[in-house]
Structures are given as C-alpha cells and as structure tokens.
C-alpha cells in the first residue's frame, strides 16, 4: 500500500490501522479511510456489478452519487461504501455478482444482450401471454437487483433520534455554509450547521490552491472550521446528510457515526426559523461510450482520493473536463506523481491563464474544445479516445485513469423539497433558485460562485438574511453584505453542453439503472418526450443515487434534442430522502410507549396473557384454555375479579355541567341523582353509537362519569367541541389514571366486599344501580358502583391508583375463602355476550345507530334545553328501513365451533355479519350476536354463515331472543 502520507490535507490517523475482510481476504487500511478508499488503496478497482447488464463498476464520485460502490457490509446490503468509515473487522461483500468478488461475474454475458433490453423493457416485454410473466419475473429478479435482504432480516446497530432546536439551520459545512453560520451566530441566534462529510471544509478542504497571501484554500477551511467550533451558539453536526425539507422549515437529516458515539445512525429533526442551503455542487458526468468503466472517475474523486486519503488513483491519467477545478486537479495530481498525459477541456476559452501556464510548465498538453468520446478496456479502462467537439480527428491515450467531468451542477434538492422554484440559467448552465419560500436562502457555489471570496461573501450575506428572518440583523448589515458581494467576481460561466453524436448504446445517463442515451432516444421515439416521463419509462434517476448522476444531464439532453414540447430544461422532481436512508434510522430509538394499569405486575404474575388494547396493556386470558371455562364458571358460581382500570373516568363540574351532559348523552341527565348511577350513551351527529358509560352525581353541579377504554382519550374534547359556541360555564377533568378500577363479580362478590369494608353493602343498603362512597379497611377511599355488565351481582370499585395494588392484594386475600380468581378480557367478553350486552366496536360499527342495537330506549327525545348530539339523526333513522339490526343467535348444530367474528351472513348475497360468537360455558351452546338485514332479524329466522375458509360448508344459526342468560336480570339484583 503506497500512500502519500506526508500531505497536510489528509484526513487519516496514520497511527491507527484498520483491517476489513473482502472476498475472503483481509485488507489493511488507516483510520479515516472509508470502505471504498481502503479497498481502492489495496488495488481493488471493481466494487460491484450493474443492475441489469452486470457491467463492472468502480469508484466514481466519493460522495455516493451513484450506486457503483454499494456493497454488503456486515450483512447489511446497499451500504454506501464511499461515505462509510472503515471499521476494524468489517466483512464486506460485492453485490449482484455470483462469486466472492466483483472481479469476475458469470452473469456478465448479459452485457452482450443489452440490445434485448430496450427502454421500457419491463413494461413492454414478457407480458403476453400473461402466463409467461410470473416465470420471467422470477428469473429477472434473480438476475438483477441490488443486494439481498431476507424477510426475517433484523437490522443490527443502535439507532438514535434527536430534535435539536435552531433559529437558523445551515445546510452545508463548506466555506459558504460556515460563513453563513458565523454571520447568523454573531447576532446571538442559535445556529445548527449540518455537513454531510465527517469534517467541515467543503470544496476548500482538500485543495492546496492559493487562497490569499497568507495561505491556501485548505488552510482557510481549517481556520473557518476553527472559528465555527469556537462559537458556543453554533452547533455542528458532521457526517450528517440533510435528507428532507418540509413546511415551516422542518429539516430532517441522518447522522452517521464513525467513532465511539452511542449510536450507529441518528435521525435528526430540526425546526428552524430560517434555513440557509449551501450544499455546493457536484460534477455533471460526461456522456460518452463506457463512461462508467472502472478507472473513469470524477475529477473531484481523483483529487480527493489523493489529497484526503493519500491514494493516487492510478499511474497515468487523461483528464476530460469542463471547469477550472479540472485543470487545478491535473496540475496537483501530476505533482503528486500521477502522470497526466493530456487534458481535454470542453471549453474553447475562459480557462484561468495561471492554470494553463502551470500545465504548460509540466508539458501537459491541453486540448481546448475537446472531450473524451470513448473509454476502452475489458474490465477497467486502459485506453481513451479524445475528439474535438466541432471538427474531425481523434487522439488515443493508454492510461488507467480517466478523470472526466462535463462541468458542475448545483445540489438544489433541498431547495426543491422546500418548495423553491428553479429555472435554467444559460450563463452558469445551472438550475438556479428563482423563487424561494420565506425563510429559505441559498448561498455559495450552488448559485454559480466559484471565487473563494465570493463564495464566503455569499454565505455571509445569506447568514445575515436568515438572522433577519429571526429579527436579529438589520437591513443596513445586509446592504453592506450585498455591496461586498457585488464587488467580488460573480457567478462563472458554465461549460457548454457536450454534443453527443454517438449512438449512445453504452453511454450511461444513469449508472444505477443501466439507462443509456440510447434508451432515452427510444423512449422519446415512443412519445415520452419530457424528462419526467422519460425518467419513469427508462428508470433513469430512480436508483439509489437518487438522481445524482442523471438529474442534470437528462433534462439537458432532452432539451438539446429539440424534440421535446418543453424546450427549456426542467429538472425532474426530487423527493426525500435525498440520499438512501435506512428505515431503521427513521425508526430511531423505537420506544414502544404503552400504558400499564396499577396492577400490571400482579396480572402478569397471576399468569395473565397481556395484549395491547389501544394504548393499554391488558390481560386477555389467565390460562392456555381459550374457552376460559374455569374463569367464566368461577364468575357464575363464586366470584371473579377483573382489572378494569383502563375505563375512562372524568369529573365534570360547574354551573352548566348538566347542560353539557344533556348535550352529549342521549338520555335524560336531569334524572341523575345522588346515590344512583345512570347508564347512558353518546352518539355522533349521525345518531351512531360512539360511547357508553355511567354518570353519578357527587355534589351540586359536580358529576363523575365513565367512558369506554377506547374513547377515554377523546371524551373531554368531545364535550368541549359540542359545547364550543354555548359559552357554558363548566369544566372537565380527566381522571382516567387517577383511579384504578376493580370489577368484583359473582354471586359471592358481596361477601368479599363486606369483608373489606365497614359500610353496609347489603342488597337493601346498596342495591343494583346504586353508587356509594366508603372506606376499604377503614383507610382507602373507594367509589363503588353496583353494575352488571357480566350478568352477575357485581361491583366496580374505583380506588386511587397509588392504593390500587394494595387493595387488589387485599381483595385477593379476602376472597380466598370465596373462591376468588382473576378473569380476563376474553372471559368478560363471553360473560357479557351471554347477557346480551354490547361492546361498542364489537357489536357496532360506524353506521350503527342506537336503534339498530335495540338501545333506542336510552334516547330521551324531549329534553327541555339542550340539543342532543345525534338527536336529529336518531329521529330520522328510528323507522328507517334497510338498516342492519342486532340479533342474537344460537347455532343449529350444538357441536359446531363458533363462527369467526366478522364472518358474513349470506343469502345469495351478503345480508349481515357475525359480531361476536362464542361457546357459552353457562349455556353449553354456541351463541352469538350479529347485525343482519330487517328480513332476517325476526326470531326464528335462519342465518346462513359463510367463513373465509369454510370450503363451501356453511354454518347455520337461528335468531333467538336476548339475553341468553338470566333474561329477567334476577342475578343482577340478588
């Protein structure tokens, strides 16, 4: 490994070595290497194979602008090795190749059959006859693709998330971005600076060119970086790629960690008052035959490879460039030991004389108005052909590196995502921001500036403008910055479009999708004549490079053909994420937030099988027996205890509290009286049932009410929404978590309750539908309701949550002699089904009215004051025909298994569906409830039930009266 370790621009720590595994061999590198630079330094030139043709692909950009160097790293496919730091022990594999490395791939023969894969191949081929496609698709998917991911793949690593705050967010840590950050920070604002690379410096960072009499560009970059780091109110995130921009300056980014930080990747979300985009430029690829052959790379890639990582890209090189950075790189790389044979510059004039002079001093010929037309070489480039843009003749050079670049193209993706409008600028050849939303500013090279001082001044001005958005800088300061910028060189002239005369069958406009100029021409010949359509038909720009390679050339090429109805070049749409981002990074820390009741642990220790019910964890079963026979029998015969703490609980108080109750409940709430509970329901404006619960009066204009678990989160807002214009003086407090609730149910429930309280809980003193407040063990206050949801003597004890565990334990202790045991949600479901009680959401859906459920009696239609929510609809639907009605049914065959919830009831067509059906332990029969059409709702009707896997064997049931169990309610009142 022969590396230039003396260079002051290096970003390596020579004292620390790293080794990675590739193709069964170990390769040594230096800390600071990326995986790609480490492999390149070890002589690896082919990193992978292309998507369709399996062409060899190599290092091209170093910033991940194409998928050439995507590799599998430690089992994770599609890792961008150009920007992923090498870590000791990494195991790296080539992708889309049969074999250990990408050097030789038996599927490479597909390149010879590229003629068989024209534009729109997938849309046009192998569809007829249709039976061919499933077979073809399987083979195509085997032969193509990027990486392999098993369905049960589990992402390794630690993924974090962070929401830093900023007044000004600057994206891009180059000279413009740093200048913008410093300008904004000097006003005292909080500034966040995001930089994609692991260090600040941008296009100054690696260049030894003169900045001023005091130093070079890279030295200037370090000075600026030092200044930035010293300002407390600038927060720098390096190795952090901005991937999205949304309304109101919400910026999203992903930080990759190469060091000892506590995460592998971190999702970063910033809400800023103002944003400065200073993302600079990338190079626009030259279009020529075999322009993606390994050995062909961007000028900046070759230059940075040497200057940042100390790796010379090869032994001899030809440059085909369109900007002065190419000339500068040719001079510098030649001095570092790369033999530069020739420089072809697409520009006829406009080059910096000083650079031409330096090239001349080194006897490097410069061909103005020339460009490369072909790279030759079987696997890697070993010869190139140059030709004049306007004229005849050609020259060939044997070389192992071709540094090729048509010019520069600005990275405007974030501006577009932020809803900025771009227009093509003939002078710079850039898509420049034409109209930016408020609070978004652009700066630096992406505006066409090339002069170092202009770039910094542009950034400084943008930083002041951003500060002004926050009210922190003055117009005078901005005017001064404007004047300064005006006194410096403006945007430079861009390079001309390089005419492409060849057929273009291997001139790749998009490396990722193996899309060539020939494909674009084919697409246009078929009528896809605007870039957006061509992009979709050829897939150009839709690969993992996210349009980085194709994004500029495609619209320019289409425009140059003169065949497009939209003659002005228009960029294709970009979308976030701007760079490929792991879903794991978006998922972040994945804290699974759910609620636990105060007796969660004891439910678990009692054998409870917990399930997520909405936001809550609840015990559904307490045994493996899904029929819950023992639990149900115990409630029917002894006493069971259920944790019902998830019930919604509210206090509503104030002079107009009753009016609010009247408004949202369908019942006559004036009948709520001390010591009694009132059961009622809430409907929506359509008269459909949305909630039910009980209400008690605890004092003057002071009520306590319950809501179903699922509605607890919305209940307070429901009240407020439906009284928002009335100006009523009432208030509502959510007490859901204040009280735990124990449902003590069964014929021996009273005996258990009496054992823990001195209060008289006899049937006379505390009757059915009664409400009492008393102390348990003479110490713990309880609100007790006598209810009967499960069809037995039953109490709901509402106790302060902090006492809940102690009370629960005490009840279990007190109930030992009475056969007390837990019952879970499924047992409750069976018990209430036997009793014919409905559960909202189980026996109702969004179209089910109170009348449909047989609960019309709850509606008090003559309330004196309040207009009940849903009353009008209840009136209209009361006698409406064609509605589904709730019925109870028994299965005809007692040995039949219960039909699945949701099974449809058929009669040539669908006539309804089964809401809930279970085997009734108490009745020794399968019973259920269903919503059916009127014609099937009569007692004695026969229901034909279709299940999704019944194989044509229907189940049959008969409509019967409800409730199935204790029809006269004797057990509730015992």
């Amino acid at each position, binding site marked *: 490994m022969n590396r230039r370790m003396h260079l002051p621009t290096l970003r390596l720590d020579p004292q620390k070595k790293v080794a990675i595994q590739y193709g069964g061999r170990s390769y040594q590198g230096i800390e600071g290497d990326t995986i790609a630079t480490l492999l390149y330094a070890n002589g690896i030139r082919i990193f992978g194979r292309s998507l369709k043709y399996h062409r060899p692909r190599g290092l091209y950009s170093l910033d991940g602008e194409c998928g050439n160097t995507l590799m599998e790293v430690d089992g994770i496919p599609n890792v961008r090795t150009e920007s992923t730091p090498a870590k000791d022990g990494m195991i790296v594999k080539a992708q889309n190749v049969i074999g250990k490395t990408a050097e030789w791939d038996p599927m490479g023969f597909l390149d010879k059959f590229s003629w068989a894969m024209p534009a729109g191949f997938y849309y046009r081929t192998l569809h007829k006859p249709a039976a061919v496609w499933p077979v073809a698709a399987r083979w195509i998917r085997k032969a193509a693709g990027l990486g392999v991911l098993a369905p049960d793949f589990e992402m390794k690593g630690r993924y974090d998330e962070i929401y830093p*705050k900023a007044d000004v967010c600057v994206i891009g840590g180059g000279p413009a971005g740093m200048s913008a950050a410093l300008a904004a920070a000097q006003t005292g604002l909080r500034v966040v600076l995001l930089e994609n690379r692991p260090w600040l410096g941008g296009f100054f960072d690696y260049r030894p060119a003169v900045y001023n009499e005091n130093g070079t560009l890279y030295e200037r970059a370090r000075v600026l970086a030092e200044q930035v780091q010293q300002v407390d109110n600038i927060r720098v995130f390096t190795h952090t790629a901005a991937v999205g921009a949304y309304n109101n300056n919400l910026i999203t980014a992903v930080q990759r960690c190469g060091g000892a930080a506590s995460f592998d990747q971190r999702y970063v979300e910033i809400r800023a008052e103002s944003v400065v985009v200073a993302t600079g430029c990338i190079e626009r690829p030259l279009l020529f035959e075999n322009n993606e052959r390994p050995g062909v790379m961007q000028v900046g890639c070759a230059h940075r490879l040497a200057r940042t990582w100390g790796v010379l890209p090869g032994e001899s090189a030809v440059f085909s460039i369109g900007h002065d950075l190419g000339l500068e790189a040719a001079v510098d790389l030649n001095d570092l030991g790369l033999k530069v044979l020739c420089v072809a510059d697409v520009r006829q004039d406009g080059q910096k004389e000083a650079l031409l002079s330096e090239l001349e001093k080194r006897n490097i010929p410069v061909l103005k108005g020339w460009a490369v037309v072909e790279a030759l070489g079987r696997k890697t480039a070993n010869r190139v052909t140059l030709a004049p843009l306007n004229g005849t003749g050609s020259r060939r050079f044997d070389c192992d590196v071709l540094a090729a670049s048509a010019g520069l193209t600005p990275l405007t993706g974030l501006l577009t995502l932020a809803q900025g409008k771009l227009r093509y600028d003939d002078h710079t050849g850039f898509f420049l921001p034409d109209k930016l939303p408020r609070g978004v500013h652009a700066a630096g090279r992406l505006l066409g500036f090339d002069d170092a001082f202009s770039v910094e001044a542009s950034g400084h001005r943008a930083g002041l403008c951003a500060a002004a958005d926050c009210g922190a800088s003055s117009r005078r300061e901005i005017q001064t910055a404007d004047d300064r910028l005006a006194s410096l060189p403006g945007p430079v002239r861009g390079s001309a479009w390089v005419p492409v005369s060849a057929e273009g069958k291997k001139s790749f406009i998009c490396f990722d999708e193996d899309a060539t100029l020939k494909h674009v021409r084919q697409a246009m010949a078929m009528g896809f004549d605007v870039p957006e359509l061509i992009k979709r038909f050829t897939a150009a720009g839709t690969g993992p490079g996210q349009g980085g390679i194709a994004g500029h050339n495609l619209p320019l090429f289409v425009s140059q053909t003169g065949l497009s109805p939209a003659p002005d070049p228009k960029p294709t749409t970009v979308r976030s994420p701007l760079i490929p981002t792991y879903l794991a990074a978006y998922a972040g820390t994945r804290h699974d*937030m759910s609620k636990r009741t105060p007796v969660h642990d004891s439910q678990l220790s009692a054998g409870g099988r917990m399930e997520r019910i909405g936001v809550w964890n609840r015990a559904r079963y307490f045994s493996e027996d899904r029929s819950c026979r023992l639990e149900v029998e115990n409630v029917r015969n002894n006493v069971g205890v259920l944790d019902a703490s998830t019930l919604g609980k509210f206090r509503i*108080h104030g002079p107009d509290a009753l009016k609010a109750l009247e408004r949202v409940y369908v019942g006559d709430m004036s009948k709520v009286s001390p010591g009694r509970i009132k059961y009622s329901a809430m409907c929506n404006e359509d008269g459909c049932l949305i909630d039910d619960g009980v209400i008690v009066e605890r004092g003057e204009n002071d009520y306590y009410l319950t809501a179903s678990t699922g509605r607890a989160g919305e209940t307070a807002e429901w009240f407020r929404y439906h009284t928002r214009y009335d100006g009523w003086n009432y*208030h509502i407090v959510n007490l859901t978590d204040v009280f735990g609730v124990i449902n003590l149910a069964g014929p021996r429930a009273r005996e258990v309750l009496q054992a823990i309280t001195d209060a008289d809980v006899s049937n006379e003193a505390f009757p059915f539908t009664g409400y009492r407040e008393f102390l348990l063990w003479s110490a713990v206050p309880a609100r007790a309701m006598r209810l009967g949801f499960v069809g037995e003597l039953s109490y709901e004890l509402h106790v302060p949550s*902090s*006492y809940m565990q*102690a009370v629960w334990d005490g009840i279990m202790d007190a109930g030992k002699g009475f056969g007390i045991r837990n019952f879970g949600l499924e047992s409750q479901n069976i018990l209430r089904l036997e009793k014919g009680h409905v559960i909202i959401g189980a026996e109702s859906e969004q179209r089910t009215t109170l009348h449909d459920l047989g609960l019309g009696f709850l509606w008090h239609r003559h309330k004196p004051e309040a207009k009940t929510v849903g009353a009008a609809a209840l009136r209209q639907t009361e006698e409406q025909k064609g509605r589904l009605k709730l019925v109870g049914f028994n299965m005809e065959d007692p040995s039949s298994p219960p039909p699945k919830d949701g099974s449809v009831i058929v009669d040539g067509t669908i006539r309804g569906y089964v809401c809930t059906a279970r085997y009734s332990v108490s009745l020794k029969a399968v019973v259920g409830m269903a919503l059916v059409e009127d014609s099937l709702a009569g007692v004695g009707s026969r229901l034909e039930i279709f299940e999704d896997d019944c194989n044509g064997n229907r189940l049959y049931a008969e409509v019967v009266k409800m409730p199935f169990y204790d029809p006269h309610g004797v057990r509730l009142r015992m």
Partner: protein
Amino acid sequence: MTIHQRRSPVSLPARPVKTEMRDGWTVVLEYADEGEGPWLIDLSHRSRFDIQDGAIDQMTPWGFSIPKVPLESVFQNGVLINRMNRTQASIWHLAGETPRLPPESAFTDVTEAALLIALVGKPVFSIIEKLTAMDLQDSRKAPPFLLQGPVVHVPCQVVVFKRSTEQSAVLWTCSRGYGHDMIHAVMDAGAEFGIRPAGENALSAVV
C-alpha cells in the same frame, strides 16, 4: 396487611439507601451511587391539583397568585403553578408542607393522575432533545415556564424549571399509565450522559 401503602407508578433501577414514609408513600430520599448527575428523580408522590374556573385570574390558592399568561409558571414557597390556558392551571407541590385541597369546586386533586419526574443536571437539554421536539431552550422564555406537548409521543406537561450552563432542571408529567415506558425512555436517552436515578434530596439543589 400493608393496605395503607401507596405506590408510585414507577420504580427506578437503583437501590434506595435512604427512605421515609410520608402519607402512605415510601419516599426515596437517596439512592446508592447517585453520582454527580444528571439525575432522574421520581416525584410522583408530590401533590398536584387541577384548577379550572372562568374566573381563574381572581383566584389565589393558598394566597399564591396564578400567572395571567398561558404557558407561564410561577414558583412560590415550594408550589409551582402553571397556567395552561384561559381557564385552567396546574399546581405542583414540590417542597415544604403539603397543601390541603382547597374547598372550592374549581380544584381537583390529580396527584394520582400522572407520573411526575424531574431531570436535573448539566446535560438535561441534551437528554431531553432526544425525547421531544418541543423547544425547551427558547431564549425568549425565562424559567420557570410551561410547555404542553409530546415527550416520546406521549402528551406531557413540561416545565423548564431552571436553565443554566452548570445545572438545569426540567420537570414533567405524563399519564400515570405511561410511567414505566417513560422511565425506560429517559434512562435510555440519558445513558450516554451517565444518567442515574436520584432520590428526592437531589431536587433540593434546585428547588
């Protein structure tokens, strides 16, 4: 029978070394190996009240004034009062004698409703910015002040109690049921900063 024993919604992952019984609660005053911070302190045993009234501006619970502007807070004699909106405020008792529930119907004791925790130490904001997108460092607001919004996607009331380069303190409440997962999330976010559970005594440094 320990029927009088009240329980916090959470138990912190550390060994209590100093406790005291207070109104049925076992209050941990100090844990083993609390370190130098940052600290996570469970204050769920501290009394909290909801006050709602159309004439809230005229109310002076225990003689304390209620901030007039929503999202402003005041801390007086160990009582933190946070104005939530036009008609509502929350009251958190943090130090001193526990105040009794005033007789007016506007007050509701909501001590049991929520987890109340405090995060105290130097890197408080570095920890909490991993949990919420709310801006706790808004320089236009002077502590104490209230924010209402999601922390780890859970609706919370957050009070920036103290903000300085050396030591800051943030307190917040969320529904009691979320307590277990909230503690897990905070400890996980604070792990890289060396967060440790601390007893109530650690709060005295800032209250």
